Structures are given as C-alpha cells and as structure tokens.
C-alpha cells in the first residue's frame, strides 16, 4: 500500500506542478505603451493620460494582483533578500479587484498618471515626469523581475505614437506601432479568426484529427492507468483481508470445531439451498399459511451465468424483420 501511496502522491505532484507553472505571473508581458496621449484612449474620467498594456501570454487565467509596476527598480536587490522591504515608489496592484485576474491571451491597460487613488489601474508614477526610460513588472514577493520594457522616451514624449511588441507577447521585436491598440492585439493586420486560421493551416482537418485523437487517447489512457491502479490496490486489499481471515481461522477451539461439524451438513446442493431460501422468504414475509409440500425448481435450459442475467433487465431488442 505504501508503494501505491507513493505513486498517487507522485501523480498528484506532477499534475499540480503543471498547474502551478501553468498559472504563473511569469507569463505576463508589456505589450504596448503610449506616453503622449492627446486625443487617444481615455480613462474612466475622460482624461488622456499615458498608458501601458500588459498581455497574458498563457492559455489560462493569470491573476496579477499583488505584483508591482514601477519605472524605477531601485531597491530591487534589497527587496529580493530575506526580510527585505519593498520600496515605496513601486505601485502595488491591489488584490481586491477581480479585473486583475486576466483571462487567457487577454490584455489589460494601466494608466501611468501618478494618481493611484483614481482606481486599481492608475499607477503612482508618470513616465512624463520620471527620469528613467523603462517600465518594470515585479512579482508579488519582490524577488522576480517578470518583464522590463525599455522604450525610446524622447521620441514617445514628442510624437503621438505608441511603442510595443510587433507580435503579442514575443519580446525582442519592440518597435513603433502603426496603430494604437490598447486592450487588443498589436497584430492588427495579421489577425485572423480561428476558422480562417484552421482553414489556412489545416485545410483537410488531418492536423486537428491527429491532435484530437491523441488527446482522447491520452485522457482514456490516464483513466486506464487509474483503473489498473484500482485493480492492483483491490487485489492487495483482498489478499490482506484473506490473510487476516486465515489468521483468525487458525485460532478456533476444538469445541467450536465440533459444533460447526454438527450444525452444518457437508455440502448443500443447489436444490436444497433454494428450498431453504424459499422457506425463509415465506417465513419472514408471513406467507406461510398454507405451505405446499412440493417445490418445483425450474432449471434453465440454456447455459446460465450472471452475465446472461443482465440481459433480462434490459429493454427488449428491436425486432428486425428479415
């Protein structure tokens, strides 16, 4: 049983570790930034302020509550150490807003207006007044630098143009963007629907068939392995119970043995067992006013097994006229 427990724990660990890594804030990326906002995207108060867009590259929800946004990573090294304090100038994303839980492949816009009291998505710094030319996203414990975006500050301060990743979430290809896309994909021209992409990439459906059948088999093979484990553990439990029973049977006294031999006939035939069962049934159901002295037992003509019996409880098969 110990070895089975080990396997179960190992399986659980593998599954949960996958889940933990899968839902990591490490999947978040700065996707687009606009500093000179004259008539572009406005906040909930109607103001045109600088903004930055964050993209969840994962295919699952990621909650970024508790993480830090900053334009000044001073103090990062100290914060990462045991007992280190988080610098006050870092903006901590509140934990109370459900909107910080980003769905898979989604976008979230933060206003860089140094007005943190305006709401969850208003930071405590403003790139127009800061001396740095980067933004950083830091994990909730202050230890990990999740992403950093260096941007051409002078150019962005002077012209109304946004800067970001050419392809969503893929770092290393940051550039001035032709269109502003706060809250949506930067790949405006390349955006195609799922259907169009499938038609283009998998016109005959072979790819989908292979992937899908693989997943179906994987799911059912997992169940198969689980059932094998069930069978193995059941066998072990049955063996253990049998050993216990055998151990208990080895103790009986001679008197008990004698009484057993007196009480029980050597072997009951099927007919005798049926007669006793029927007598007991009649007795316990008070149906024994007039007892017949003859019991007729109808033996089935066909070979009989518990498996065949199942057929009797099913609905009738449809009649097919030949």
């Amino acid at each position, binding site marked *: 049983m110990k070895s089975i427990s080990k396997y179960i724990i190992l399986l659980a660990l593998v599954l949960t570790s996958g889940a933990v890594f899968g839902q990591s804030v490490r999947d978040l990326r700065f996707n687009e930034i606009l500093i000179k906002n004259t008539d572009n995207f406005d906040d909930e108060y109607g103001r045109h302020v600088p903004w930055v867009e964050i993209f969840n590259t994962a295919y699952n929800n990621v909650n970024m509550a508790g993480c830090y946004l900053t334009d000044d990573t001073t103090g990062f090294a100290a914060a990462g150490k045991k007992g280190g304090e988080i610098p006050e100038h870092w903006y901590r994303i509140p934990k109370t807003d459900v909107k910080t839980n980003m769905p898979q492949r989604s976008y979230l816009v933060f206003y860089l207006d140094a007005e943190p009291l305006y709401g969850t998505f208003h930071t405590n710094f403003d790139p127009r007044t800061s001396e740095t030319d980067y933004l950083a996203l830091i994990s909730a414990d202050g230890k990990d630098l999740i992403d950093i975006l260096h941007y051409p500050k002078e150019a962005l301060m002077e012209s109304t143009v946004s800067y970001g990743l050419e392809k969503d979430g893929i770092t290393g290809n940051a550039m001035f963007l032709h269109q502003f896309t706060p809250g949506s994909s930067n790949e405006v021209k390349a955006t195609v629907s799922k259907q169009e992409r499938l*038609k283009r990439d998998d016109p005959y459906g072979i790819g989908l068939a292979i992937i899908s059948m693989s997943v179906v088999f994987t*799911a059912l093979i997992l*169940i198969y392995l689980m059932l094998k484990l069930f069978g193995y553990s059941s066998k072990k439990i049955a063996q253990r119970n049998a050993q216990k029973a055998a151990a208990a049977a080895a103790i009986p006294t001679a008197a008990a043995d004698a009484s057993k031999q007196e009480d029980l006939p050597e072997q009951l035939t099927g007919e005798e067992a049926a007669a006793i069962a029927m007598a007991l049934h009649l007795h316990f159901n008070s149906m024994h006013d007039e007892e017949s002295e003859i019991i007729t037992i109808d033996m089935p003509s066909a070979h009989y*097994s518990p498996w065949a019996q199942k057929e009797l409880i099913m609905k009738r098969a449809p009649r097919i006229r030949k």
Partner: protein
Amino acid sequence: MFDFFKEGLIQFFGYSGFGNCTWGHIIMICVGLFFITLGVVKEFEPMLLVPIGFGMIIGNIPFTDGLQIGVYENGAVLNYLYFGVIKGFYPPLIFLGIGAMTDFSALISNPKLILVGAAAQFGIFAAYATSLLLGFTPMEAGAIGIIGGADGPTAIFLSSKLAPSLMGAIAVSAYSYMALVPVIQPPIMRLFTNEKERVIRMRPPRAVTHREKVLFPLFCILLTAFLVPSGIPLLGMLFFGNLLKECGVTKRLANTASGPLIDIVTILIGLTVGASTQATNFLTPKSILIFVLGAFSFVVATATGVLFVKFLNLFLKEGNKINPLIGNAGVSAVPDAARVSYVEGMKYDKTNYLLMHAMGPNVAGVIGSAVAAGILLSFLY
C-alpha cells in the same frame, strides 16, 4: 352578408394550415410519421423517435408568422422550451441521468476496454475531414463530425455552440443512426471479423468493490476535466450522476436523476428538436449531406472499433484476448451498441455472453465522445 361570410372564410383559410401548406411541410410531416412508426412498430429507440417524430409533425404544421406559435418565434411556448436546446443545458442534464443509471463496473474490471472507446472516436474526425472536403466550414464540420460519437445529447450540445443553423439536421441524423445501430453495425462487424474471432471467449471480469465504484467518478472527472476543461458540462454531469448512484447515500437523488429528471428532459429535447426541423430550414441539400456524412461517421466509428480490438489482440496472450465483436460498442449509443455485440455474439456461440463485456467499451465511448466534443469546442469555438 354573403360577401362578409365569404371574406371571413377566405381569411380563415389563409390562417389555416391548409392555406400555407407546401410540399416541404408535407414531406417533413411524413418523415415525422415514419419516425413514430419506427419507434412504435419496430421499437427502434422509441423513447427518442416518438417525441422527435411528433415534434416534427407539430413543427411542420404551417401557420402564419407573428402569432407566436413556432419554435423559432420569440415568445412562443415552443420557443421557451427550445431555449434549453439553444443554450445547451438539456444535454448536460441528460448526461446527469445517464451517469446515474450507468454501471461502470465492466470498465473498472477490465480497463483495457476503455481504449476501444477511444479508438471508435476516429469516426468523428473522419467525418470532420470529409465535411471540410465537401465545403463545410470548420465549425460546421466539427458539429457534423460529432454524429460519429453516436451520442444525441453531445451532438446537440456541440452543434448548438458551433453550428446552430445545422442543429436540427445534426440532431435528427444522430438520433436516427442511434436508432438504426442494430441495422448499421452488424454487417460492418461481420465484414472485419472471421468465424474464429467471433467465438473468442473473454475472461470473466473480477468483482469490483464499492470503494472502486465510488472513487471512479471522482478520479475520472479530475483526470478528464483538467485535460479538456471545455468538456466539463458533459463530463461533470456524467460523473456527478454516477457518484450519486454509487456512493450509496444519495439514493433519492440518483433515482430522480435517472428517472423523472431524464424522462422530463428527454421529452423536452426530443419534442423541441423535432419541432426545430421546419421544412424551410431543414429541407436543404446541406441536410442531405449531413445525413450521408452521419452514416459515414457511424460506419468508420464501428469499423475502427472492431479493427482496434483486432490490433490489441496482437499483443494479448491467449486467454486474455478480446472478442472483436465488442469493438462496435466503442460508439456511445448505450446500451444499444453493446446489445448488438451480444446479439451478434450469440449467433455464433449460444453460450458466449458478450453483453457485459461490451458495456465496457460502450460506457468508455460515452466518456470518449464527451472528451472529443470538448476538444472540438476548444479548437473551433
């Protein structure tokens, strides 16, 4: 006075079914009557074909638009009942009932049979690829392909999401072929097996403990739902229903789920799906193609199930071999496909009871088709 009566009669005639009748309506009413006949006289899936057939009749009685009568008219009673089909909440309720009435012990005792249930899902993807070749969009092809899973509720669930406009044809096709399982499958089973294979005796399965039966739905939902979360509505309800049945302390809930609840939902789903086959929407070349593709997917699913068993047998020792006649049961038409295995097996050996062995792949087919639906949903929706 005479003119008044004449005008009134003409107006009344204009409102009546006779005044609005087309050949399409008559054809569909005939199809409805044929379904009822199949159900009542031949006893082919009467629980499904009788409500669907009657639904076809009431859905195809012509009327004037705007009276809030038809299934597609907002505010109509039938439209409210049809809501459960459009939004896909009837199928999970049916799965709850199926779970509460399904005994998975055949599968638990012989786990390798679950792989047969996986292989039979190939019919779904063969139909998907063929539908694409015939010009259907990927979403439509996915909805058509699921007919091969031989699972009416799953077909309705998926088509309501992927291709609502084809749902009537897909649902009717799926249920029709499910009813015709005893006719479609035997020739394919015989085609791919020889006399020797058909009389293979399978080893009696071991006894399954209560603990295993209780743990089975819990572990299964965790394994399958984590892998394919989009299948949760179907798989979740299936395993929840099974847990109600097996845990032993929720007998009343299990009885309700497997009795009155599934009966009510079957009535509603059957009637409204039948009523949704209005001639104007249903009698199109696409519907005919869907029926052809549905038959094709059934044939492929049956064949792959049988062939996969033969493939498995190559690796199994003598005495552990599987009778390929239970390969057809990998489709999830429960328990009809298993019964076909049993009936075919009895033809070749009167003492070879394959029914409960076939129930293994059959219930695995239910799980497999729900997983396949979840995958299609996640890729196409």
